């Protein structure tokens, strides 16, 4: 019962902690007392019909009925209520308690306040020590003493050696966790203690149950306990106000959709997205009245939004002489926040639900529209009155959540911390099925065939995309100054139009939770990265993020990659290797994380793939960009009969098989989704000794192939790709170790992709330099030969300092056996010019000698 400021008033006379003594006989208090007596059997809290704190209706509290056999139930709450504020005030040494409207003390105020006032407090002092230990808070099974003791024990003993939470960074995990946090509070002076409910649960399940069922009573008890403990430990520390306990991560973390009447007045945690915040609402906590006749003043607590204006001045006995003085009344901050279900946990075909959340005091303005948050709070329901003068009530309750704790789920992205710990809950069963699936030897094939079953064959491409979905292990070398290494696999699909590239992209986009789908034609550089715009309401500049940033930790699908403007494409350079986006616009300079895997699709320039040309020539993309793709696949229309037959069969069956038949054959999309999410969250494979050897060998082999023909056939980038692919493959198997089979598959896939995309059409050899330098080694060789031939030709002409360009070309053509294109000739001239052998000015070629 964190009653408002009046509580410590008995201890220390603070600013407004000085309730005048006569107020205990205040005319306002009797009504509430009377009501209590009258309705004692049914509770005294009108607006909360199912409140476990006030009546016995809550299904969660049937066991309490026994407590009710007491003939005078109305006595019990009084005593406990009186006792709690007293205890609350005891160890504080003058630190004022701060009211907690989040716990509903606003509504409970009369109950608490009445007894926290000095006269009644005095009475309680005597009764407390002997009665306190056996009593429970009325309407619950919470015994203040035991509860406090338990919580203190929890604080003193609880350790979580395996903690991975970022809050605990820098704490000694083997020492009691919360004691360290208390120490932190004493140093920092921010009197808020966040308690993970899951810790409480693992420590004492009974305490946890009480916390969930009776948060309104248990949390103040926790407050008391922690303050006692704190001031015992750190008697000298000075805090602004007493420590408040903010539990979070109640195990009942649930979807907004599953909230139901049974959750009313319980502690819940829901996740959602903030869609609207109201302005700050000052809510009166305590009205200050002054008599116009004798200037006698009195305070009245707000009870359910109403102030019972005292009709008679207690000092001079004049009636209706009291007036409200606004400036001396006590207000607290309040804000209404609308939260909407996050799009991920919504069933298809329904619209998202919204819930109203009230934030109080320092939680006001903690969240902004658009934030993804986990909210822990108490679920409330209040009946709506149609007309205050009529007793006619709409039979509907208004529901809201009084927020106790906010946790932004996307906060980490701003801090750049590891987001692998993203909370995605898996039930035990689910984990079990996933693990069973992972244990199957053909899991890799199974998963890849489950990927976009409507798209026929292209097995290797599907496998590649599967590995992309899993991604490599993120390695952080920023400590040694080398920054992050990319873990995401980038894939480019190119090929004939109408080979269902877009369909694959659509599928992937639908599969991953944080996917973005854009079309190269329609997106500008700003649309992809981020742009600065003026907020129409506040006139402030705000940074709006584009597709690449939005798909951080997801996959960005870019269709019609080739139709993108050069300008737009250039931003991809940074994203695809450094995984960041730098922005310097309108005075905003920042670097955003864009750890996104890029899945792009490109069409050949000539609308049909020309097998006589290289990949680069076909899709006209700069090689600097192409080399950033780990895998480049060609989706061509293979033309052979067996393929045609299988394709036809596949398509026809698509049209007549029923939904169920298809389901049987393939994995459910939901299972696939969960499988990927689980692997991404919990599995981070490392290279085994054996695997590293295999990788080294593979790389050396790749280099060797080329060196025989005098060209470089692999670069470190390819090695990195191999590592990523091998890691991803290990993830598919749920293996924490990358083994040689992973490397084998990575090698195979990489080779397949290369075979498709980097084969030199002239020689038929796989030539990596097509992708890395944009030109095949043979083409380069040919260029040199032509240059040499040209040089010879010129030398043969003897001492002619200047020649006609066209004539030289004709001469060379006449001499050469192979066809010399104009481009080739130009290249040769340029090469010779580089050697300072000649210069070309306009249409004449001059020799330099």
């Amino acid at each position, binding site marked *: 019962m964190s009653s408002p400021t009046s509580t410590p008033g008995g201890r220390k006379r603070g600013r407004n902690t000085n309730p005048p003594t006569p107020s205990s006989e205040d005319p306002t208090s009797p009504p509430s007392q009377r009501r209590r007596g009258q309705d004692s059997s049914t509770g005294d809290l009108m607006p909360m*019909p199912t409140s476990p704190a006030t009546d016995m209706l809550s299904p969660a509290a049937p066991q309490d009925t026994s407590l009710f056999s007491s003939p005078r139930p109305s006595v019990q709450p009084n005593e406990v209520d009186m006792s709690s504020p007293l205890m609350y005030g005891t160890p504080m040494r003058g630190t004022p308690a701060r009211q907690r409207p989040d716990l509903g003390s606003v509504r409970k105020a009369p109950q608490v306040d009445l007894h926290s006032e000095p006269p009644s407090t005095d009475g309680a002092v005597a009764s407390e020590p002997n009665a306190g230990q056996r009593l429970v808070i009325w309407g619950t099974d919470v015994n203040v003493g035991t509860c406090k003791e338990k919580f203190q024990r929890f604080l003193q003993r609880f350790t979580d050696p395996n903690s991975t939470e970022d809050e605990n960074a820098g704490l000694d995990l083997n020492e009691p966790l919360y004691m360290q946090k208390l120490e932190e509070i004493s140093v920092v002076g921010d009197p808020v203690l966040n308690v993970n409910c899951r810790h409480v649960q693992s420590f004492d399940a009974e305490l946890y149950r009480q916390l969930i069922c009776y948060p309104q009573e248990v949390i103040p008890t926790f407050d008391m306990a922690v303050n006692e403990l704190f001031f015992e430990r750190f008697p000298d520390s000075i805090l602004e106000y007493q420590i408040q306990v903010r539990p979070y991560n109640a195990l009942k973390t649930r979807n907004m959709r599953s909230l139901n009447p049974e959750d009313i007045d319980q502690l819940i945690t829901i996740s959602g997205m903030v869609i*609207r915040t109201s302005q700050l609402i000052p809510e009166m906590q305590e009205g200050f009245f002054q008599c116009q006749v004798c200037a006698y003043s009195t305070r009245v607590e707000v009870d359910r939004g109403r102030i019972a204006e005292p009709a008679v001045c207690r000092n001079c006995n004049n009636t209706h002489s009291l007036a409200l003085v606004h400036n001396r009344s006590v207000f607290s901050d309040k804000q209404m926040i609308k939260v909407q279900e996050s799009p991920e946990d919504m069933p298809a075909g329904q619209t998202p639900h919204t819930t109203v959340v009230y934030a109080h005091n320092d939680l006001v303005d903690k969240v902004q529209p658009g934030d993804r948050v986990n909210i822990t709070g108490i679920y409330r329901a209040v009946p709506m009155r149609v007309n205050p003068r009529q007793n006619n009530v709409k*039979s509907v309750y208004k529901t809201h959540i009084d927020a106790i704790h906010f946790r932004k789920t996307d906060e980490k992205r701003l801090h750049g911390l590891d987001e692998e710990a993203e909370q995605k809950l898996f039930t035990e069963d689910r984990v079990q099925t996933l693990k069973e699936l992972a244990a199957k030897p053909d899991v890799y094939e199974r998963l890849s065939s489950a990927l976009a079953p409507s798209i026929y064959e292209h097995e290797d491409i599907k496998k590649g995309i599967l590995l992309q979905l899993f991604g490599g292990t993120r390695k952080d070398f920023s400590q040694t100054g080398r920054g992050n290494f990319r873990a995401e696999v980038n894939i480019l699909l190119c090929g004939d139009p109408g080979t269902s590239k877009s369909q694959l992209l659509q599928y992937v986009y*639908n599969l991953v939770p944080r996917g973005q789908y854009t079309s190269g034609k329609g997106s500008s550089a700003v649309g992809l990265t981020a742009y600065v715009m003026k907020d129409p309401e506040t006139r402030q500049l705000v940074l709006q993020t584009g597709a690449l940033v939005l798909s951080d930790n997801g996959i960005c699908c870019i269709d019609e990659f080739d139709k993108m403007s050069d300008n737009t494409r250039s931003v991809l350079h940074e994203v695809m290797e450094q995984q960041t986006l730098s922005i310097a616009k309108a005075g905003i300079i920042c670097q955003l994380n864009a750890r996104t895997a890029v899945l792009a699709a490109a069409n050949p320039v000539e609308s049909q793939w020309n097998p006589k040309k290289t990949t680069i020539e076909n899709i006209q993309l700069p090689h600097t960009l192409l080399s950033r793709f780990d895998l480049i696949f060609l989706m061509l229309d293979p033309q052979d009969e067996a393929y045609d037959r299988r394709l036809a069969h596949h398509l026809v069956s698509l049209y007549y098989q029923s939904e169920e038949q298809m389901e049987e054959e393939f994995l459910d999309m939901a299972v696939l989704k969960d499988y990927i999410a689980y692997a991404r969250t919990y599995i981070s494979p490392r290279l085994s000794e054996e695997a590293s050897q295999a990788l080294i060998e593979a790389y050396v082999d790749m280099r060797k192939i080329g060196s025989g023909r005098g060209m470089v056939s692999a670069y470190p980038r390819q090695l990195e790709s191999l590592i990523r692919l091998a890691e991803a493959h290990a993830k598919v198997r749920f293996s924490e170790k990358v083994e040689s089979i992973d490397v084998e598959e990575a090698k195979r896939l990489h080779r397949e992709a290369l075979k498709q995309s980097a084969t030199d059409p002239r020689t038929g050899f796989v030539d990596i330099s097509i992708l890395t330098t944009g030109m095949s080694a043979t083409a380069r060789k040919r260029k040199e030969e032509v240059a040499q031939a040209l040089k010879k030709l010129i030398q043969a002409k003897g001492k002619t300092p200047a020649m006609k360009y066209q004539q030289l070309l004709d001469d060379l053509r006449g001499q050469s056996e192979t066809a010399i294109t104009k481009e080739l000739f130009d290249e040769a001239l340029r090469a010779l010019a580089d050697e300072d052998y000649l210069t070309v000015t306009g249409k004449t070629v001059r020799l330099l000698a």
Partner: protein
Amino acid sequence: MPSTQDWINDPLAVVEEMFAASQNNSNSGWETKAVEFFQDQLKERDTHTLVPSLNDVPLHYLKPNSLVKFRCLIQDMFDPEFYMGVYETVDPSTKTKVRMLRCGKYKDVTECGVDFNSRNTVTAERQTFYCVPIPGENPWVKEISSSCLTEARVVPSTSYAPSRQKRSYEEDDDMDTQPQKQREPHAGMKIPSEHHGNGDCKRQETEAPSSQTASASHLDLNFPLPGEKGPSCLVKVYEDWDRFKLNDTLEVYGILSVSPALSALADEKDASSSLLDPAESMETAEEQRVHSPPASLVPRLHMLHAKPLPHNNPLLPSAALEDNSAFLSSTLSEMASVREEILSYFTHVLLGDALAAEYLILHLISNVYSRRDVLPLGKFTLNLSGCPTVASYTERFYQIIQQLVPSSHYLAMSLQNMNQMRLVPKKDYVANRLVSGALQLARNTSLFLDETQLEQGQLDTTGVRNVTALGNLISWQKVDYDFNYHQMEFPCNINVLIASEGRSLLPSDCQIHLQPQVAPSHLEESLSSIHMHPQASSQLNKFRIYLSMARLLDYSISDEVTKSVEDDFVDMRKDDPQSISAEDLHRMLVVARLLSLSLGQTSLSRDSWLRAKHIEMLRRSRMEQHKCVNGNEP
């Protein structure tokens, strides 16, 4: 067993009776029993025609708290609400504590003197859907379905004429209070409330006739299509609301509630009420207006039973076809002949182009029957290019389609329309509702895009977004609703027909260039003569039944035919790999499917496959031809 009139006129009494009976034994499950009772009643032959329909009968002719039905589309889903399922009333005037257990289900407002602290209160949950009449429903559907209901309509309009409404309201009131043994103590309490009720009744009475027109001015009823009229409804759903999806079409049977106490506007007048209840003042005025509009404009409907509608053609039995084998077999045998008639009619409409007429039939009976991951199967968007631009041909053409399909919408793709119209529904967070757009359509609605209206000019941002939305709709049969912070994809099933001069800028499954068989000089003449063929209504009805039927038939491919289709495909590829791609096979399979269905055959025969191949060939050769003439590279 209550008589028919009872359960239609006063369903609440039935519910309450069951509730009262259940009080003796706690596990009676009266709620399911009540729902079952109404379902059983409605299952009986023709009883559902006795229930007045909100679609046809003006609201002020309907008796409050009676059973009504409503043919509608779920336009928006509001948040679930908690209500007092069971509560106890105490009479405040006497201190004698006369306690009454009441049932709050299927009601909006409680009785007087609720004891909030009663331990017998049961809080329950219900869901609210905002429902609108099926968008684009054509006049003939409305006409026929209301004529089916003549009986039901006559009853309320005579016996519940506006002049008697006040009376009925009172009677109703009496009925509710009758079970109370102690009526005397209530008298003091009742007078003011009754007075209040009467006043409202009177107001309602006088305002009712004009309410429909007045509504549009200050209250946006959020119809997907502009210019729509009709009642919209807040449907309260009590049982498994998860099975309903946005844009589902339903026939809802429920208890009509028009209690004036529901009006939020009344609250607004009384500013003090909002001051006193801080929770209520948190809602914006817009939100209140949307979520609790005056009941006289947007009545509440407490759902007892809902029937998902597979189609909204009143000429067809609404039950599943399998249950109606007699109807099925009689129409099936006629299908081939009706097809001939409709083909010749369409040929006439399409200026003598029989091939285009054939494709038009296929288009009109197409239906997304399944989805394979992202790929919708069965859609058949037709682009009818080469439409004459004279004599508003496209509009006439649409009028003919409108006469044949149950719901349709004409969207002129003029630059102004594209730049200004709201096609995609958008969430309005201030009012907390989904603001509808023209693409929020029920399944199997025909969307007629008239591209001949498009002129040169610049598309602005909205325009580009609208065109993209149309493109997405055509290729994936989905609409991405705009939720401001994110988009949400809603699958849809809309038949899109694009009429254009050249090849449309939108994608399509199939393009056919119209080849008028009349000389250009006679074009105008023959265009104006199209309308000169007023079809006999019996013939029109035949066509209507035919088109809806063909869409509902089952379809399968036998193994032998599968084999021969595969062989065909392989052979065609062998001759010329470029001639047929996977996409062409996709299309041919759809054409073959639709062709079989249009002939009333439920499985693909070799003949139909060959015929499908043949017409596809004809179409393609025409396209080639046209390409050569036009040089217009696609």
